[in-house]
């Protein structure tokens, strides 16, 4: 018989919270909306195969289109998906006034947040990666399988970058969700306003996540004179180190704040 005065072991608690949170996240209206959003590239891929492949000039290759889609995916769609899920991890519990019940369970707060974040990551990866893979094959096989082999390394690289983007943005927005009562607006401002700083010259892009993620993918428009100042490419090793450090810092801060903060429910 377990000693109920002591909290559940960390791993067991995380797994329990993960299972519960996953069930609520994956099978929800939010996920349906996200699936439609993240599935837009697949829809474009189908449209390309059905209609556009015969109409577009041959200079516009499927690999080029795939590159554009990946760039837009990582810049906008992936951060939005992370925003909608990660900010809701704690904010939804607070708004629904169910946080109190959750915190009274014999489960460490760190385990609650870790389990929920893991469920958020699993959900967003489950929605985004299949879309990326399907889009890749829809576009690159449009003119036969001859072009697929050359682009396969890009597919694996892009999948890795998408996973890293979900991790990084997820960690950041989890922190926002833990700190702020209404994290959605600041999150949207971050994605659509602050991240534009990545296009500025100088040192400022290093204060965004986009600059590091964009530097890890190979799909970049050619630098053209003046415009090359606005699309810095940072060394890959630096990008990986910084993103890893940011994930650790954001998640660590989130766990610490959630563990020590007093949540007072509004009556």
């Amino acid at each position: 018989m377990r000693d109920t005065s002591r909290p559940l072991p960390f791993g067991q608690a995380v797994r329990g919270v993960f299972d519960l949170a996953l069930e609520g996240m994956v099978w929800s209206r939010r996920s349906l909306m996200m699936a439609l959003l993240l599935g837009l590239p697949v829809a474009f891929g189908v449209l390309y195969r059905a209609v556009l492949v015969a109409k577009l000039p041959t200079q516009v290759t499927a690999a080029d289109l795939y590159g554009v889609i990946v760039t837009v995916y990582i810049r906008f769609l992936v951060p939005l998906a992370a925003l909608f899920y990660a900010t809701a991890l704690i904010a939804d519990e607070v708004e629904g006034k169910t946080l109190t019940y959750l915190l009274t369970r014999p489960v460490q707060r760190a385990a609650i947040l870790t389990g929920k974040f893991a469920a958020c990551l699993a959900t967003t990866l489950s929605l985004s990666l299949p879309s990326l893979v399907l889009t890749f094959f829809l576009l690159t096989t449009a003119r036969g399988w001859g072009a697929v082999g050359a682009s396969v390394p890009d597919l694996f690289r892009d999948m890795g970058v998408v996973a890293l983007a979900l991790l990084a943005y997820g960690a950041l927005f989890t922190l926002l969700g833990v700190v702020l009562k209404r994290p959605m607006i600041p999150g949207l401002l971050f994605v659509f306003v602050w991240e534009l700083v990545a296009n500025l010259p100088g040192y400022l892009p290093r204060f965004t996540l986009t600059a590091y993620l964009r530097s890890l993918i190979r799909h970049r428009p050619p630098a053209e004179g003046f415009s090359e100042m606005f699309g810095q490419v940072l060394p890959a090793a630096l990008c990986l180190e910084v993103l890893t450090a940011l994930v650790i810092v954001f998640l660590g801060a989130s766990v610490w704040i959630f563990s020590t903060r007093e949540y007072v429910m509004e009556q």
Partner: protein
Amino acid sequence: MTRSRWVVLGSSVVVTAGALLAMGAIYLSPARAAVGPMPAEGLILPADTRFVVGLDVRRFVQSELYATSEGRRAMRPQAFAELEERTGLNPERDLDQVVIAGGPSAASGRRHPGLVLVSGRFDRYKLSRAIETSGKGVTWKDHQGTTVYMFGEGRKGADAAAFLDDDTLLFGSQAAVEGTIASRAGGKAPLRANSTLMALLERVKPGSTFWMVGDQTLLSNLPQSVPAPGGSDGASLQLPAVQNLIVTGDLDPQIALDATADTADEAAARNLADVVRGLLALAALQGNQKPELKELASAVSVSTEVNQVHVNARIPHALFQSLQPKKTAESPGVAR
């Protein structure tokens, strides 16, 4: 199992299947695998290759620049028609890619003219007959199951040609062609052993109309210094050593040229960039006599990234046409 777990499992299955399919596209169909822009057939090139140049003939022929230039080459259609009648080959229609490889010959230590790999659709019988009946010292023999056509056999520097398969034609020195055929027959990919060149090829984005990669051996014949402008007698500007060079280019919607040179360190890169900028400034100064040169200089940009120098040129077609040598106008007939 809960519904959510089914969704996650289904998603994992899709991703895993896609990854396996992608791996299969590389490993099960090696003919479709490539390194950067180079087709898989290029891997049979010799390991001592020092530079590789590629031209995507289809993109080149379909470009607007080629279409507008075609009118200037009025004599070419006649030559192409004769070629097609004799060999069944229309270069504009049948050629896909041309890859040129060169470097010092490992056996002789001298620079050999290189190998040319041409891929496309060939009427193999017609082309072979055309070669065999062209006379002029053409002989042929079987080498490891492949017919090799030799031009000037026995002579020093004899050339050769061979069909590697229905889609690939190989030209070059007899020794190089036979060596390449032997590698292919043995299922080898000698170029993979050239890690420097492979790394350079992987940095080239597939889809360029033309591209070139070369290591420092290619550049060893370049001058190490240039005369310093305005300097005293004998003064010269030392050029930083370039370790590798990658050049890619496209023709539409304008001529886009991107060159990346790897130097020893950041200081050398800045030095080289300054030299290039200086040359561009000199070209711009010629703008009084030739305004096109000034325009050309402003179309080129130079930047550095750690130990790399990037030179990018974006040349509109009109500017390119204006830089071409103009035909002298025919003098009017004398009036009687």
